[in-house]
């Protein structure tokens, strides 16, 4: 499988600064102190606390770990260009439990968070990408950093 890190691939080995987004304060007091979160839908947040990633639902107050999301293989066969950094546009091809991004292949597990919202876990690291299928937006926690990206429409 892959030899390059996901950060290296998505930023062309650091040549391009990844797209970023501001952290959200809407989860203050609702998630463990010291957590960082970004908003991924009107009431949903991607939360990182140390190495732990979870999805916080602001409507219900529930916290979901990616691994707890029902397995979803709807991305199998899906091919599209994606980008997490300016001028770094990569072909992504999904299998049932793999994704090829550019030249590198990764083992993944995809789960369904909610309607048209998928979470992709990279098995050998703690990296995850949330794919909002309704807007083709990507929210990622990679190497301990939040990144914003998109799938070409």
């Amino acid at each position: 499988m892959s030899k390059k890190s996901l950060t290296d691939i998505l930023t062309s080995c650091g040549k391009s600064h990844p797209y970023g987004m501001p952290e959200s304060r809407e989860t203050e007091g609702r998630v463990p102190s010291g957590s960082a979160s970004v908003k991924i839908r009107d009431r949903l947040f991607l939360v990182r606390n140390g190495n732990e990633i979870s999805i916080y639902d602001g409507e219900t107050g529930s916290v979901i770990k990616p691994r707890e999301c029902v397995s979803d293989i709807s991305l199998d066969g899906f091919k599209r260009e994606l980008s997490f950094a300016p001028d770094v546009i990569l072909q992504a091809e999904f299998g049932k439990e793999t994704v090829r991004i550019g030249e590198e292949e990764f083992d993944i597990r995809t789960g369904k968070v909610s309607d048209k919202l998928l979470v992709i876990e990279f098995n050998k690291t703690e990296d995850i990408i949330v794919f909002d299928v309704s807007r083709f937006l990507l929210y990622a926690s990679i190497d301990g950093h939040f990144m914003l990206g998109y799938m070409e429409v």
Partner: protein
Amino acid sequence: MEIKCDRHEGMSIFRPPLCYELTGRKYTLVLDNGYDNVIEFITDEELILTEKGTEKRYPYDCIKMADGCYFVNFEERPLKDPRRGTTIVLDTRESLVTVCYAELGRDPKFPRMPSTEIVFGGVVRPDGTVPRIRHGYTADMVGTSIDWNYGTFNIAHVYQSERFYRVAFTPRALERIMRNSPDMMAGSDGRPPERKIYEDYAEYIKIRDGLYAVSLLETNLARRNDHGNSLFFLMDLKELHDCGRAFGTNGEGLDENYTFGAFGAWYDASREMSLESMYYIH
């Protein structure tokens, strides 16, 4: 599940999630046009604006672009005639505000011609003071260009000078347009395509280091096609991500006022900047 994005208004597909951090908060805006406005975000979707002593409720969109920096857009619904939309860049960290008022219907010959007015101001701090400093017009962006991906299409905005902008298309963007919307390139004035360049009015405002508000008008488009928009953006040039709103009418002549987001990449627009203007004596 079919892997297909939903349809969204205009170019709003990449709009970030709306921000509800302002819910329950109230601010007094001390504007440099002589008026103090009070804005209260009573729910995640509705605000009350007290302007010249009159209180009105509006549905609003709020997008967060940086810590303590918000893009708030609203217009009275149902729409009034003439139309007037308000967009506020609210910097709660620095207690500063920039307001963009957009109107349709001022021009008797072109009723769908957009016009804008920018007003700067301060926000009353908890201790009752108001900053003396203001957001300001800037030349920082002059001579640069960014290719923006709105999801459904790409367009490069060329920040030509302090008062004007131009439009360009990368080869990738042109290919996309010809594939999806070939009539976007229609219309001929006899000039060869490589000598045609769209140009119109712009205003560039510095909010913080790396964060700029940009107002673009489509007055020449309105003269040519009978519709053109006021576009107002809040751009983070370190993250190359922006949000904005389109106020005006669409290609079918229907009213529109919606928020959007886009991903950028620096573009070398030396060629486009060197072309003689088709519209203005410079």
